[in-house]
């Protein structure tokens, strides 16, 4: 079973105070900590689990600059056999359409039974690279996978639907699956593990060498303006020390009839 996993390096914004960049079309990323997109972390884990079960290879791919290699090193440490980075200094000039063109072009020359991407990326939230690749490559596909088994050379997938419903399908390989969080428990990666994996193959491909036309490298969507959310009335903030806050909160709970 040969599996390709597409992964992206994204900034962690959970507790960050975000500012709009000078250009006005993105955020300032200078002070942010980057890491593997959460969904991709589950995707690489799923690929490695399958490899451990059925043998074969796992190849991790990203489009990005040298810093983004960290994502690939992590994938290698988790069990990928080799990694490919398509060199692009500033991927924010590309949209999902262009990224899917680039990835499809690279993947076309590789041997694979399965391609995994995350359902979506935490930064842009588009969630379209995977399915665009499937169409580009003209292969079978299924979305938002929360369970996967291989049966007689076919994939038995469970896709997550709204409201906790799962849709089970049987798909012929090769196929592209977008992986949903919770499908497995991604393994822990130690610094030592990353250091050990440094011996594994990490190849860099220059974008011009792929021979993709300018037309295909021009984005279909353009961010005109990024901005902080419009002000809303928002929550009434309870201030003070934990003692004072607790007393105020208890009054509210009593008033709302959930505490005597």
């Amino acid at each position, binding site marked *: 079973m040969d599996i390709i996993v597409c992964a992206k390096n994204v900034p962690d914004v959970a507790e960050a105070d975000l500012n709009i960049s000078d250009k006005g079309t993105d955020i300032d990323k200078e002070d942010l900590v980057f890491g593997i997109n959460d969904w991709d972390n589950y995707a690489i884990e799923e690929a490695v689990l399958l490899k451990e079960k059925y043998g074969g290879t796992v190849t991790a791919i990203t489009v990005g600059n040298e810093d983004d290699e960290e994502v690939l090193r992590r994938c290698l440490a988790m069990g990928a056999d080799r990694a490919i980075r398509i060199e692009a200094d500033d991927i924010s000039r590309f949209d999902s359409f262009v990224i899917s063109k680039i990835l499809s072009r690279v993947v076309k020359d590789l041997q694979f039974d399965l391609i995994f991407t995350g359902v979506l990326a935490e930064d842009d939230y*588009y*969630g379209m690279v995977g399915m665009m690749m499937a169409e580009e490559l003209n292969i*079978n596909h*299924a979305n938002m996978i929360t369970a996967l088994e291989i049966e007689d050379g076919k994939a038995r997938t469970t896709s997550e639907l709204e409201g906790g419903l799962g849709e089970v399908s049987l798909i012929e390989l090769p196929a592209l699956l977008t992986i949903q969080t919770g499908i497995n428990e991604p393994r822990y990666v130690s610094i030592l593990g990353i250091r050990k994996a440094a011996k594994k193959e990490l190849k860099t491909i220059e974008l011009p060498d792929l021979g993709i036309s300018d037309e295909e490298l021009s984005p279909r969507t353009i961010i005109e*303006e990024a901005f902080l959310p419009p002000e809303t009335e928002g*929550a009434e903030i309870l201030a003070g020390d934990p003692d004072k806050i607790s007393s105020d909160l208890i009054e509210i709970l009593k008033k709302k009839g959930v505490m005597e």
Partner: protein
Amino acid sequence: MSELFVIVEHRLGEIRDITFEMLWKAGELAETLSSNLTAILIGHEVNSIAEKISDRADKIIIFDDEGLKNFNADIYKEIISRLIEESKPTLTLIGNTSWGMELAPCLSIRAGLPLATDCIDIISKNGNLIAQRQMYSGKIFANVSFAESDGYILTIRSGIFPTDRIGDRQAQIVQKDFPLKDITVKKNFIEFVETAAGDVDITQAELLISVGRGIGEEDNITIVKELAEALNGILSCSRPIVDKNWLPKYLQVGTSGKSVTPKVYIAVGISGAFQHLAGISGAGTVIAINKDPKAPIFRTADYGIVGDLFKIVPVLKDKILEVKKGG
């Protein structure tokens, strides 16, 4: 006259709310753009679904066939791309749902039309189309424009637009056939599976105390559980807690979990992603405890506590027990 397409989403014989929401927005746009509004309904025995939207579209194109009983993105893609080729609609709206997220990108490549997903608004200004979306977990908004094209595909986030009817329409029904045998289907639907029910039903709870990723470690959940017990409330959670297997799926609140309607909902260490918020739109009072003052949850909560949950929750629990004992 230009045309707008809305792809009807339905499941197990029921029309999905996202369909009404898209028809609402498309109805509004049809006015400003002087366009015809066409709903596309693909399925089997779908007349009752067509009836539900017959006063919300100018035309309903129905593809009814036994072979269309289950959703299949490839079949939808073939049918819709043919229609797009014939009618060249300015806009095609699809729900940003699990199914829509599979269909739209494939259709975009197939039809050669630009796509923006998960849109929360569509603005048509001087002939230019702007899609409004959110990025970075809802902390940033973005206005997106498109490369010049005959038409555009947008997927629409659930729960943003009203489910009401807008304008006065009387749909002309057009039945069409599609040569299904020309499509080789390589993905076969097997069955639907439900989430296993648990010993508590959070949809029935009056008071929910919900824990999110801010809790950090599995063992720390105890402090939130103790708060719930002190209040005689029920413990629930956000998705990452279930993904990590720290709590069972039936306690998850949100689009892929449960929609809840407690009198009071206390969110502890939850950022307020829209998939989570969608599950608490029916809650009475929302109280959020989060150390990030910019967390989106504070935009919808009624009361907020900005601070470290580990400092606040234990004190709150003790105080509640004290009050209860005293009273």
